[in-house]
């Protein structure tokens, strides 16, 4: 059974008619379950190690303790407030930084003058690790929202800028020539040839940007904040609430995963034409 199911799943679903959803539900399919075996085993082992006292729960709380801490924080509402604050910061920084990155990427990809004017400067600034600016940023903005917004936006800017520019530059010149010969004006050429051609690369930038967004936010909130997930984790450390610390880390991980899955979903709808993104 497993032998015949595996290759059938690996092949594209479009190539053959969908099979009747009669027998087993898809999540019970062995090939779907296999990737989850190792994580499940780790969590189980962790729980056993914690409850038998093999690992001191003062330093590493067992999964059930973390769940309990999560439940409590959710009950008091503290978790939701902090989660919401962090989410808004991430979103604002991403929109600002990503928007500017996209704008510069498009401008420099489309206009030689704009590229000559700004690209070298931007590439130089890129070499400064943005987290090294934290002391300066605290001096400028204090521990206000401005500081977090600035750092996240700066971090997100470069991957989106660089990948947008690269995407536009690598659009097939033969297609552009075809568009011209077939009478497209500059505007049509942009919307119908250049932008769709650059989109796969822009999505790569988007995913890099999302990763940097969380990373920057964690660091910024841990160092200087009075709300948010990072602040929650730092407060918990002060009171030796290890379970809350681990909870915060796991929530960060989950948020990263959600952001990544959303981008994948986007990619799959926007890039359905590309065999590399279909199905899977």
């Amino acid at each position, binding site marked *: 059974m497993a032998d015949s199911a595996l290759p059938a799943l690996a092949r594209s679903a479009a190539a053959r008619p969908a099979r009747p959803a009669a027998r087993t539900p898809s999540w019970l399919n062995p090939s779907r379950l296999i990737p989850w075996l190792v994580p499940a085993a780790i969590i189980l082992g962790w729980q056993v190690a914690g409850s038998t006292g093999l690992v001191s729960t003062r330093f590493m709380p067992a999964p059930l303790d973390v769940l309990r801490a999560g439940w409590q924080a959710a009950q008091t509402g503290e978790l939701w407030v902090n989660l919401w604050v962090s989410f808004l910061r991430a979103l604002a920084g991403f929109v600002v930084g990503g928007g500017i990155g996209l704008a510069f990427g498009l401008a420099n990809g489309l206009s030689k003058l704009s590229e000559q004017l700004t690209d070298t400067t931007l590439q130089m600034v890129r070499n400064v690790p943005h987290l090294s600016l934290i002391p300066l940023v605290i001096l400028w903005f204090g521990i206000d929202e401005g500081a977090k917004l600035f750092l996240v936006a700066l971090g997100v800017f470069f991957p989106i800028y660089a990948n947008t520019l690269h995407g536009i530059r690598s659009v097939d010149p*033969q*297609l552009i*020539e*075809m*568009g011209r*010969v*077939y*009478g*497209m004006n500059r505007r049509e050429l942009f919307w*119908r*040839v250049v932008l*769709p*051609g650059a*989109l796969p690369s822009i999505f790569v930038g988007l995913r890099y940007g999302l990763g940097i967004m969380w990373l920057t936010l964690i660091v910024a909130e841990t160092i200087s904040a009075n709300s948010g997930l990072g602040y929650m984790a730092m407060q918990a450390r002060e009171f030796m609430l290890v379970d809350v610390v681990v909870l915060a880390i796991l929530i960060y991980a989950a948020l990263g995963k959600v952001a990544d899955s959303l981008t994948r979903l986007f990619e799959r709808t926007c*890039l*359905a*034409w*590309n*065999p590399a993104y279909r199905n899977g």
Partner: protein
Amino acid sequence: MTASPALSFETATETARTARRPATGHALSVTLRRLTKAFDGGEPVIRGLDLHIPAGQFVAIVGRSGCGKSTVLRLILGLEEPTSGLVSLNGSDTRASKRIMFQEPRLLPWARVVDNVAVGLGREGSRAERRERARAALEEVGLTAKADEWPATLSGGQRQRVALARALVSRPALLALDEPLGALDALTRIDMQAMIERIRIEQGFTAILVTHDVGEAVALADRILVIEDGAVALDVDVDAPRPRRRGDPDLAALEGRILDQLLART
């Protein structure tokens, strides 16, 4: 040309339409005068070319690689500016379009097949009308069933047929073919040649085919030009009846003659 009385032109179009054939005045004629093209101040690729292609003729330009045959085509289409000399296109319908089919299909991978064909219509009419006409053009090349597929799912020959439909959907007055079948396998190529021949007879456009395949030139063209060193070395009319049979002795003899001309300089 444009001085002809509007009335007679009108009636000519009308009769043509009722006879379900394109207007006879639809095709463009091409005249090149003392045409020279050099790239970046180097040696000229085209040297003082004089050529007249009457409206509705199917001309094949053959030559070795690097002889400038593609450059001639690009000059005619206005994709390159001549260094000196003149390119003029004449026809009764001044808005008549010219279209090119490249060696590669050059389809937009992110547009469905039918939308790729609709690219050939530019901004003419509404989106729905364009799609309608694109579907009709796809029927002409036998790909109706693939209209809503992505280009990535098609074979090489199918993609080139979509490119042909895109070139023809606007009913061009001049079709330029820049080695469009060079990358296809032999059998697909013969199929496509027959398809191009059939559609050309139906629509009556002027066709200029650039190719290094002498057999293809002999099978399709009314007239064959051999270009060497940027000038016409041989200009022959092919008046064999259509559809032409492969392996016809007269055509084989002609093919041999042209090959001799091409190979004589080695």
